[in-house]
């Protein structure tokens, strides 16, 4: 075991992992985090805590991670390269680990231009690939990026993202290989809607032997409405929503759209359970945490293993 993470135990134990996500509030109310967390408790193996997602200021991801630990859940602490330089990143890693954080997701971060402070200076001192490598060095060699020694290295389970739908397609699997070489332990993918494209990508990863070196969790986000599906298709960079998904949501009664969205997600999860190279699912029920128990139940991923 590289860490003391529950997620790592679930994956190394050969169980099909199921992770969730929680976006911290745009304010100081801890109750908001605690209430969202209550819906996820017992439903998922770990909960991603987003880091100023879409470049909008929110309660810091490490602070919200601590609230989750207090509630008895395991956070997956997300860190983006946009807002911190290497000093701040490493000190936050030490602090988060000292408080019980055991998983970390290394991301570039959405460009600041998307957020509520579009003219902020983006830091990008290091990129997500270099962040993976830095955390691995901290954990395995007990050294900071500078090479100096760490007293009590942070034993973290290291995650990163992958987007099989961004072009050039041929490069995506090679970038995955680069992340593996940099030291990543698990991958959570971009939300998957184009199953055909995803099947191709995972086949390439299987053929290159990559899925034996890293745990891949397939990203699933249920569509709450037709508007959401159209927005994701048209406005979110790197998102691939095929017309069939839109048509399927259009084909049901307005009141049934959300249920159809959940149905699609559950069908996907069923396929992922059987798909070679997929080690679990990362469910991003965006501002829909209260639906997670229903989705987990319908997807047949309960009860979660306790190890």
């Amino acid at each position: 075991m590289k860490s003391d993470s529950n997620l790592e135990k679930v994956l190394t134990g050969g169980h099909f992992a199921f992770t969730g996500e929680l976006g911290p509030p745009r304010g100081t109310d801890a109750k908001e985090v605690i209430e969202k967390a209550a819906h996820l408790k017992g439903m998922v193996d770990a909960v991603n805590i987003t880091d100023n997602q879409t470049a909008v200021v929110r309660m810091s991801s490490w602070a919200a991670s601590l609230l989750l630990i207090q509630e008895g859940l395991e956070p997956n602490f997300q860190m983006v390269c946009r807002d911190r330089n290497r000093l701040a990143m490493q000190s936050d890693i030490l602090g988060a680990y000292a408080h019980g954080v055991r998983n970390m997701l290394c991301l570039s971060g959405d460009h600041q231009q998307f957020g509520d402070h579009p003219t902020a200076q983006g830091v990008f001192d290091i990129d997500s690939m270099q962040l993976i490598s830095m955390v691995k060095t901290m954990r395995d060699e007990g050294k900071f990026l500078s090479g100096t020694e760490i007293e009590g290295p942070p034993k973290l389970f290291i995650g990163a993202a992958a987007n099989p739908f961004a072009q050039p397609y041929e490069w995506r699997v090679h970038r995955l290989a680069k992340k593996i070489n940099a030291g990543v332990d698990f991958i959570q993918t971009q939300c998957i809607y184009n199953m055909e494209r995803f099947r191709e990508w995972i086949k390439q990863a299987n053929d290159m032997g990559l899925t034996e070196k890293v745990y891949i969790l397939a990203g699933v986000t249920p569509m709450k409405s037709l508007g959401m599906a159209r927005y994701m298709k048209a406005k979110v960079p790197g998102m691939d929503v095929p017309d069939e998904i839109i048509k399927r949501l259009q084909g049901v009664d307005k009141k049934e759209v959300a249920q159809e969205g959940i149905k699609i997600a559950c069908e996907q999860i069923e396929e992922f359970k059987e798909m070679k190279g997929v080690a679990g699912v990362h469910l991003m029920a965006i501002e829909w945490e209260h639906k997670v128990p229903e989705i987990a139940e319908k997807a047949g991923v309960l009860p979660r293993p306790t190890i």
Partner: protein
Amino acid sequence: MIVAKRKPLEELKNQLKDYKKVLNVGCGTCVAVCLAGGEKEVAVLNAELDMARKMDNNPIEIDAVTLERQCDREYLAELDAIAKNYEAILSMACGVGVQFLAERFPEIPVFPAVDTSGLAVNQDVGWYEERCRSCESCVLGQTGGICPVTMCAKGLYNGPCGGTNQGSCEIHMDQPCAWYMIYERLEKQGRLDCIHEFIPAQDWKNQVPRTLVQPGYKKVEETEAS
């Protein structure tokens, strides 16, 4: 070359509102080529300021001179005899020229007339695109001659990120994704192996004011001391 854009008239008027006798100094090199601060732009700006101040009942006496370069002592020396005749100097050079001018005449307030925006190529008359951030650690040999520091909005060394959007950057459909272009060019050259290698964290060299002394040369004071 270095490119710059003239500041809005209102801002320039505000900078100069307390001065009645001003020298506007153009620069005949980069900013002249990019149509921001050469001889012609000095004349245009002076005419605008002259008229605006008359309308404000606060007339200004503003003279014009354009030097070959403001980043070279040799040319700045041309102003030594006349600078003291002015209450303030306006410089239409890039930020480098403005500072060198201010350094030469420390007793006279010097104001910038342009905003310097970077190192750019000339795509067409009046159209310039940034290409270099002068990071002092050039990786263009590995990246197919496309700079990831300048051309990627996140300055990624191991791109593209997940936001690459059908060849465009996530910040705008009109902005090409640098890493998409890098991939395409290297693929055509059969050199994709260049980006299979992980590029480690940079040792940033542009975090302090830099001095460059070419091999075989010395700083003046060192030469004098020896």
